[in-house]
């Protein structure tokens, strides 16, 4: 059955995977709470309290906190996302309990039950978690079967009517696109650091998977101007190193970037 609580947390796609990290983080191995009346992950506990299946009065938060801290101290590696999640839920529990325990001058309005409160997590989120787990299973299932599209389309043979494009063609289409983009108001306030090395890795990875990239489409998909610029420089860099080739099938057609069959063996 699907465990609604914990989709696996392995190999985030965005970050380059840490080298050879052993798969010690097995399935659903979040921190488990062990109490007399409850054993399991914290979000399940929170869920049960919200549904009033467990009384918050029966949950010794000090014990949970102490054991959790011991657990953290005992680890040499911490998954920040997961621990942040734990903190959030623990804080909610404490909040709920404090609301219940504190004496009040006026009786609590009956329709405001702190147990129901979960400021930034909605019912929808519970559903999203379940669906995520279902999708994760499907992803797992799909990841071992292959169809033909997965084949690495090789660069068409030279006899095709290919036109290798010059730097000027590339730059021209790039700046034309940038102009177009500038007209669109940007709402991104915070930029993130993008390194050329990372971007190159990303581009080569994408090429390995898809065979080729549509030059403009790829740059257009970049989130910020800065990122698009970096991507552009990376492509130039890759072309210079003869690891990729930029071609047009016909004049005025889109520019496609292909991985060269044999990386020219230069410094990678």
């Amino acid at each position, binding site marked *: 059955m699907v465990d609604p609580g914990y989709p696996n947390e392995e190999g*985030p796609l965005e970050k380059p995977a840490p080298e050879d990290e052993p798969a010690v983080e097995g399935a659903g191995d979040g921190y488990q709470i062990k109490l007399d009346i409850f054993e399991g992950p914290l979000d399940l506990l929170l869920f*049960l309290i919200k549904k009033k299946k467990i009384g918050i009065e029966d949950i010794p938060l000090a014990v949970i906190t102490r054991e959790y801290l011991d657990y953290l101290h005992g680890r040499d590696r911490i998954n920040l996302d997961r621990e942040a999640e734990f903190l959030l839920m623990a804080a909610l529990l404490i909040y709920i309990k404090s609301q219940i325990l504190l004496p009040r001058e006026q009786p609590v309005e009956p329709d405001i039950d702190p147990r129901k409160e979960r400021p930034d997590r909605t019912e*929808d989120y519970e559903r999203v978690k379940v669906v995520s787990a*279902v*999708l994760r299973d499907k992803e797992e299932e799909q*990841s*071992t079967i292959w*169809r033909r599209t*997965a084949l690495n389309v090789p660069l068409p043979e030279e006899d095709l009517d290919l036109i290798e494009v010059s730097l000027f063609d590339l730059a021209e289409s790039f700046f034309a696109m940038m102009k177009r983009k500038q007209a669109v108001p940007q709402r991104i306030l915070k930029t993130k650091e993008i390194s050329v090395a990372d971007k190159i890795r990303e581009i080569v990875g994408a090429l390995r998977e898809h065979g080729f990239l549509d030059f403009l489409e790829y740059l257009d998909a970049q989130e910020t101007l800065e990122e698009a610029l970096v991507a552009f420089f990376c492509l130039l860099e890759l072309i210079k190193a003869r690891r990729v080739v930029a071609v047009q099938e016909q004049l005025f057609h889109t520019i496609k970037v292909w991985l060269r069959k044999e990386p020219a063996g230069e410094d990678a």
Partner: protein
Amino acid sequence: MDDLKNILEALIFISVEPLTMDKIKEVLDGTPEEEILQALLRLGTEMEDAPRPIRLVQTGGGWVFMTKPAYDLHVRKLLQIERRKRLSSAALEALSAVAYHQPVTQTDIMNIRGVDSTHALHTLLENKLIKISGRKDAPGRPLLYRTTEKFLTYFGLNSLEELPRETELKKILEEGNA
């Protein structure tokens, strides 16, 4: 009779994208859909029963041949793919939110997940699992997102209908409760 089955096998064999019923009907002018489906079913079971490394799969709104899991290693070696990348939990959650609430804005997704989802959405866009489908008629005219065809094929789904429905979700949630 099994001419039809063989024709279908040939058609699917040369198709890179899942072969849709519409395409099949275009080729097999006048053959009733029912007959085609029967033939596809026969082809499927025949391939499944025979000790063949390929099976017929209905995905992304069409039919396609896929290798069986036992050959994963060899295929990856040929394609020089170390290991298939998997979506991060954040991206997967954002994707689930899009799938169930589409068309949906970034703010909606943030409200559902309770955390900023900019990066997750960006990853999904880059992987073509979601697409921008327009702008919402609301202050700020925020972009609206939808899942793509690739979303279906990526998870081996034929249509969004195959995602767990509201009632099934409730059941799963309640089971976690027991």
